[in-house]
């Protein structure tokens, strides 16, 4: 039982290669089925995201050339010349595959360290492959463990808790004031890329009312349609500013758009309920003096960038903790794998010994005619019992062996001493 992985990611391949080698769900299924049908792999799973395309598999017994076959298959499947593809591919075997997958699911191999999206992508890839019946006991176990690692890393380390983008940092801050945002209102001024990032963050948090405003009404309406928001008239601040709990501004202006007096009026109209303002424009869209107003919380692009930088550093410092969790689960998986192998080796050994016992008895009892058929049968049963007893002791010792390396060495020794070349494979 040997696990293999062939793949590429954002570190090894430029986007032009990555987009050629990405798999849709249908392609992943077709590739998995073909790989199994051709005998290259026994179990398969394709993980394909915008940053990586990886094929996980389990070799059939005796076929250790499947990594090369896999690379060649990928090249043919996606019609990419091997010379272009091969330098970008990485190959991992056995424990390195397990470790790699666990690191991927923990977010340690992500472009944005610790990002949570990858865990969902791993889960989705696994569930689909499982439903398509292309995985088997080894990949099932490995991917279930990977999901567990991902969950634990996010729950037990700070790797995934701190926001890494300006928009998500702003949203996290708003949550420090209001709690969940699903019963709140937000107003976003502007319809550019930054506004879009903010709106997408707000929608992820199921914001109750989303108001959008832009100088160009047409663009605002298009934006509102896309994100299911309500357009409010640009410049009608007296009415529009009293509605939201969160105001985000990301427009190009020369003078601050929202002055202290405007916000002061809005605060009076909203009964001084807390107001969170994010100024993501340069030059600034919101007058700095707004921060002096009671119950207002103003954060500028600089403030949020500084928070993101702090979080980035904090996430870096969490890597050892996450890696320790990964190693813990790699150890557990290896132990499970070894116990499965142990059962396999013992079964083969038992079958081999019984076969030899039968041949031995037949040869030795050939000239002993005084043994009745019942005696011969009884002798066979007794020798089988002896074989069982002889096998129990090493099996128990191997099971009890805590140190994995010793366990594997003992297993290999048994394989080497008692099994023929044919049986070893």
């Amino acid at each position, binding site marked *: 039982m040997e696990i293999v992985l062939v793949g590429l990611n954002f570190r090894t391949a430029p986007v032009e290669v990555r987009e050629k080698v990405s798999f849709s769900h249908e392609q992943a299924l077709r590739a998995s089925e073909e790989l199994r049908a051709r005998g290259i792999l026994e179990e398969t799973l394709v993980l394909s995201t915008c940053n990586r395309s990886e094929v996980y598999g389990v070799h059939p017994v005796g076929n250790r050339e499947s990594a090369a076959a896999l690379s060649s298959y990928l090249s043919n499947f996606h019609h990419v010349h091997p010379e272009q593809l091969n330098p970008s591919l990485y190959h991992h075997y056995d424990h390195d595959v397990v470790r790699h997958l666990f690191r991927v699911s923990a977010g340690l191999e992500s472009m944005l360290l610790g990002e949570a999206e990858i865990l969902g992508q791993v889960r989705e890839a696994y569930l689909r492959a499982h439903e398509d019946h292309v995985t088997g006991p080894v990949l099932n176990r490995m991917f279930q463990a990977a999901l567990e690692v991902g969950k634990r890393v996010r729950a*037990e380390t700070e790797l995934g808790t*701190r926001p890494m983008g300006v928009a998500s940092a702003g949203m996290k801050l708003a949550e*420090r*004031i209001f709690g969940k945002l699903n019963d709140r209102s937000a107003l976003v001024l502007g319809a550019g890329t930054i506004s879009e990032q903010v709106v997408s963050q707000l929608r992820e948090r199921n914001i109750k009312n989303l108001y959008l405003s832009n100088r160009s009404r047409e663009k605002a309406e298009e934006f509102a349609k896309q994100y299911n928001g309500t357009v409010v008239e640009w410049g009608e601040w007296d009415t529009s500013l009293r509605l939201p709990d969160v105001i985000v501004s990301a427009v190009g202006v020369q003078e601050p758009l929202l002055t202290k007096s405007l916000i002061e009026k809005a605060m009076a109209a909203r009964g*001084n309920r807390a107001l969170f303002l994010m100024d993501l424009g340069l030059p600034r869209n919101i007058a700095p003096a707004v921060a002096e107003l*009671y*119950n207002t919380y103003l954060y500028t692009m600089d403030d949020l960038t500084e928070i993101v930088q702090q979080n980035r550093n904090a996430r870096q410092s969490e890597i050892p903790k996450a890696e320790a969790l990964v190693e813990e689960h790699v150890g557990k998986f290896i132990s499970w794998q070894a116990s499965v192998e142990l059962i396999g080796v013992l079964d083969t050994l038992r079958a081999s010994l019984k076969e030899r016992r039968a041949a031995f008895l037949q040869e030795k009892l050939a000239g002993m005619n005084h043994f009745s058929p019942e005696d011969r049968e009884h002798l066979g049963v007794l020798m089988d019992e002896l074989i069982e007893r002889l096998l129990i002791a090493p099996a128990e010792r191997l099971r009890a062996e805590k140190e994995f390396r010793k366990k594997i060495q003992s297993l290999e020794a048994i394989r080497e001493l008692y099994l023929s070349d044919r049986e070893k494979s």
Partner: protein
Amino acid sequence: MTHTFAAITVLAYLASMGLYLRFLFSGKELTGRLATLLMFLGLVTHYLALLMRARGTHTVPYHDLQGSMVLFGWLLAVTYLCLEIYHKQRTVGGFVLPVILVFFLAAYLVPDHSNTPTTVHGVVFALHVTLSILAYAAFALSCVLSLMYLAEERVLRMRRLGEVVWRLPPLELLERMSHTSVLVGLVTIAVGTSLGFLTVDRQLATEHYSYFDPKYVFTLFVLALYAIYFRLARTAAWRGARASKLCVFNFALVVVNFAVINIYFSQHHRYF
């Protein structure tokens, strides 16, 4: 036996406090649950310690300063745990437990104060004392919550975010928790004070009791101030930090009522 229960209580509270603080930093659900469990264990042994104290007097232990402090600590722990369950918020535990521990330990550390035990007994009187101390506990809790609110609000407004701010409860939740706590305090002090007046009414014929105890006046004053807080905290001008400051100020008056008025001015109150 009392000391055994006291020792277990202190250990359970200390361990619980450590776990609550760890939960604040790590956010691990298991740590939080363990903290609550240990706090519950402390609460049980704290109650047993109270029971041992009450055994001699056959009533709630309000005859001495120590007894009142232990009772206060227990009621504070009960109020906090109810609030934690009601608002599903564990991050406050690490800040409330030190207060509970201080009161519990102080009760065992202050010298035994011999005093004339009150001659008043009975269920109504016991309820009057218990409810009054429960009100103080609820007000103490609202004070801790308001202080947390003020600290977090300052950090957010100054934009100097540290490690812990991401784990603290949202400001509006702290505000709601403080309101709940004050509401509990207001109801219990209102009922407790009414029962106090009922007790005085019953004692008037036989004892030298009167309605003109400075303690009554001050308690009614505190009750009025908390009622004002409760109303103001929902108004435009006061909601947020100002209301929290008022809540802290009100609790300072509760401390004055508990410590100064009782000891130096009241004729019928000493330790409750």
